């Protein structure tokens, strides 16, 4: 049979958010090339803001769309749009954090020339120089574009491309810290190597699944799982490898090893962006793969995911207890949260889907704001991230300490904060989905996480400040605004979550 290739019907309107972000990224590259160095930063911020706000507007206008476009490769449906909207807002917040210049004495968290050898004479000079670089803006935009494509991919090859588009800029950005360059570069290399492995796993999984289903389209994979097949081995191995790739990105145990190092080493604004946005995008993709492609093969993946969820919750919570660095602690806490979100994923019911979407949004805002607070506490050598340096912060700057305490309360899931509503949503869904043991492990892990969050509060409020402790820098409107919005969302979603819950519930249907 001769191979016939029909050109697919290309509908551009439903993918407008993606087009806008990628378009903005291209413009941003051109700005790098043609705008004078002095004015580049301002122009880049405007381009990023316009791109991301434009994407958000497009998402709002597209609300309610449910269709497969580009030869069924891209699914524009509730979860896609919900996550794209969330990513646009959080991405903008992340870009604003990157644009902060009033905290570091020499301006910006990002090193001006990353190629300079750390520790060299040039590097020492660079640390004091007020040079800035703006390549980080196009990198962030490309990464965000990839993130927005990731949960929309209904085709495994496209999903792989999205994975690479979102990951490659992040590997670079992780190595750009202005202070503690070696740590940052080490983080970047680790992230890159492990990420490359994960991508390879993902790709191998795609190949095996193609062997199983004869297609890389999630709808076809679903159809294939419905037929009686003899080559189930391909399905098992392919599914497992695919999921390994995705679990790496969400930071689930046993694929979490990179999280603390990268979170600690990367410039904090980049960490914030990564912690909030990458997790959202990767969970979006995971949801689509498991709910759409393997919704009928649940017996093949749910037992495995049970084990991973339990491990992730326990390991994340327990290891976080032993951390002495704020960023590493938040990293392990993000691992524990991955476990909690997995409870919603495993539920495999509409409540699970909407609960997971809600959790991602709530967690994204809280964690972004938490990292933003971390950027404020500084001593002469940059950010003071060792926990002992945070002692007595409550006396020195009650406002910052109280803000951080509220954010930690939200992360701990204290009632009247977004974290509680979110946890309640996924645990209820898990319970309904028959995952009662998971819920019980979840509440126990929550109790453990409460310990280290509370310990920070103890340090900040009940301990005396060390004499040479760090100071809290006054941020510009960028960081202050991000923290304010993050805090407001964390509280509003705890006190009056209904509108967003409705939004998530309305969005909780995949097309395939």
């Amino acid at each position, binding site marked *: 049979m001769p191979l016939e290739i029909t050109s697919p019907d290309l509908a551009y309107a439903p993918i407008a958010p993606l087009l806008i972000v990628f378009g903005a990224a291209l413009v941003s590259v051109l700005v790098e090339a043609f705008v004078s160095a002095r004015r580049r930063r301002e122009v880049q911020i405007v381009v990023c803001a316009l791109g991301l706000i434009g994407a958000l507007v497009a998402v709002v206008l597209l609300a309610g769309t449910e269709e497969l476009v580009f030869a069924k490769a891209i699914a524009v449906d509730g979860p896609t749009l919900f996550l794209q909207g969330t990513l646009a807002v959080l991405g903008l917040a992340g870009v604003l954090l990157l644009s902060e210049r009033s905290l570091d004495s020499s301006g910006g968290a990002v090193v001006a020339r990353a190629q300079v050898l750390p520790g060299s004479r040039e590097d020492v000079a660079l640390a004091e120089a007020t040079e800035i670089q703006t390549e980080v803006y196009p990198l962030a935009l490309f990464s965000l574009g990839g993130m927005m494509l990731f949960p929309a991919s209904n085709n495994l090859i496209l999903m792989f491309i999205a994975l690479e588009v979102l990951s490659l800029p992040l590997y670079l950005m992780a190595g750009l810290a202005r202070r503690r360059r070696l740590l940052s570069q080490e983080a970047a290399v680790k992230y890159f190597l492990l990420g490359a492995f994960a991508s390879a796993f993902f790709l191998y999984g795609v190949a095996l699944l193609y062997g199983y289903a004869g297609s890389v389209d999630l709808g076809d994979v679903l159809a294939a799982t419905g037929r009686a097949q003899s080559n189930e081995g391909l399905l098992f191995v392919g599914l497992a490898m695919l999921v390994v790739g995705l679990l790496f990105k969400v930071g689930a145990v046993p694929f979490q090893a990179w999280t603390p190092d990268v979170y600690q080493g990367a410039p904090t604004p980049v960490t914030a962006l990564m912690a909030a946005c990458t997790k959202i995008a990767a969970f979006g993709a995971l949801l689509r793969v498991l709910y759409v492609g393997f919704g009928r093969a649940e017996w093949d993946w749910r037992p495995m995911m049970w084990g991973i969820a339990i491990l992730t919750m326990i390991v994340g919570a327990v290891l976080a207890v032993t951390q002495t660095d704020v960023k590493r602690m938040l990293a392990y806490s993000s691992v524990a949260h991955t476990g909690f979100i997995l409870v919603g994923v495993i539920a495999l019911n509409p409540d699970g889907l909407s609960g997971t979407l809600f959790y991602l949004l709530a967690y994204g805002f809280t964690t972004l704001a938490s990292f933003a607070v971390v950027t404020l506490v500084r001593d002469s050598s940059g950010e003071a991230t060792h926990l002992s340096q945070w002692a007595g912060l409550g006396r020195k700057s009650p406002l910052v300490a109280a803000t951080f305490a509220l954010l930690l309360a939200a992360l701990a899931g204290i009632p009247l904060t977004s974290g*509680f509503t979110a946890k*309640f949503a996924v645990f209820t869904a898990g319970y309904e989905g028959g995952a009662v043991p998971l819920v019980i492990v979840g509440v126990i892990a929550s109790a453990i996480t409460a310990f280290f969050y509370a310990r920070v509060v103890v340090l900040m409020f009940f301990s*005396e400040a060390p004499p040479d402790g760090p100071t809290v820098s006054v941020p510009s409107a960028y960081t202050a605004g991000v923290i304010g919005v993050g805090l407001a969302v964390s509280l509003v979603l705890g006190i009056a979550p209904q509108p967003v819950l409705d939004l998530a519930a309305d969005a909780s249907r995949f097309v395939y």
Partner: protein
Amino acid sequence: METTSQFPWLTVLGLIPLVGTVVLLALPRRKEQLQKVVALATSLVVLVATILACAAFDPTGDRFQFTQAYDWIPAFGVQYAVGADGIALVLIALIAVLVPVVILASWHDTDTVVPAAATTSVEPDVDGGGAGSTRIGSPHEAPRSKRRSVKAFFALLLVLETMMIGVFAATDVFLFYVFFEAMLIPMYFLIGSYGGPRRSYAAMKFLLFSLAGGLLMLASVIGLYVVSADQGEGTFAFERLVELEISTPVQIALFLGFFIAFAIKAPLFPFHTWLPDAGAEAPVGGAVLLVGVLDKVGTFGFLRYCLPLFPDASRILGPYIIVLCVIGILYGALVAMGQKDLKRLISYTSVAHFGFIGMGIFAFTTQGQTGAVLYMVNHGLSTGALFLVAGFLIARGKSRLIEDYSGVAAIAPILAGTFLLAGLSSLALPGLSTFISEFLVLLGTYSRYPVAAVFAVLGVVLAALYILLTYQRTMQGKLRLPAGLTSIKDLHLREVLAVAPLLALMIVLGVYPKPLTDVINPAVDATMQDAGRTDPAPTQGGGDAAAPAR
């Protein structure tokens, strides 16, 4: 789904302290006197409003009154639903009485360098004996040098009042849970910021125990919701949850989630270990509210949630819980006797008292449960008074050790007298209010579990020992005061005003408890009915009727 009846007293009661808090926070930092007056005034307004609400409460009317229900988070079937039955009402009244008392008693707590810090500097190497009570805490803990914010202290107290009223008023299990957890936060800061030398350890322990229990309860709350969703519409409304048919194994699982949370809160043996630390390190006002009210949420929870929602599980597990209660009564009393730290001693006496309350509840008799509810109120009054007077003494002597004091009665007769009266109330002397409750609990227990009642009576004897011995050691004999002190002043007017209402209530309710029992009885009957239990029939032999009625 919006129903309202009568004036929304409960919401108003909850809002007044919040309004007071906002006013308080808006005041300039320097005007400390004004801040205190505002806090006191707010709490007095709550008291007046509570009295009006109690007057409006019709004991013969509906079980839940002042009810309100508005949708809060329809996605989860959560409502803002409040309502008070007799049990909740008397506990809210207890809050309304205790908060102004506590504010008055804490008037100067934030002014001076807090006594606890001085204890450590005066006697740096005091090894507080068995309890290690006055040892300096973690190494980073230096004696504090700065004064703490007055505003924050009283704001925390008022916020706590709102939470406490909310937790008793909620008739939606989710709302109850929210208040149950949220209540921890102001108390955590009260202990951690204003407490004794080991305050940060005590605050952490308090928070973690309560939070762990609360999270187990959360699992059960979710379980209840899912069961209700299986049998129709998912809901948290108490009156609908009571009607659910739950299979016995599920009941036991869900019961345990609630029970452990409440048992930690109450605290029952063996979940009590946080209380002596928290009670000893908390500022006096905080300790009064902690033991007087917060802990009552646990026993209130047994009565309101465990028994009616899980009747089968309560029946099956009840005898085991009675055993725990009896152990708690004896253990608490014995350990109390061995304490060297006055505040730890009072905390341990509470462990014993909570054993009595738990026993009364799980005995499943009307007398026992009425006695238990009365006990909750009376314990709040008597232990509250005991903590206050002990706090006054400690504020004067800057030491919490019993052995540092002797013969105080000679120079401070009013202090000694109030201490004695509060102590006598704590040991349930006839004529004081606690006697009636303890008697009812024992009577109610005896008719179903005579052996348990017999053992519990030993607790009464032990109570006399630990109270009278303490009184004898500290107040009688040759005058001795902590190092560096030659004399201490007797209670002054503010302190007398703070403690007098509690003492007066003890005596009045001891002689004439009818207003309370009238309100409590219908609610207890309703609880018994929900739990599907009836009193054992009285027989000639009394104790022979101990076999469970059904």
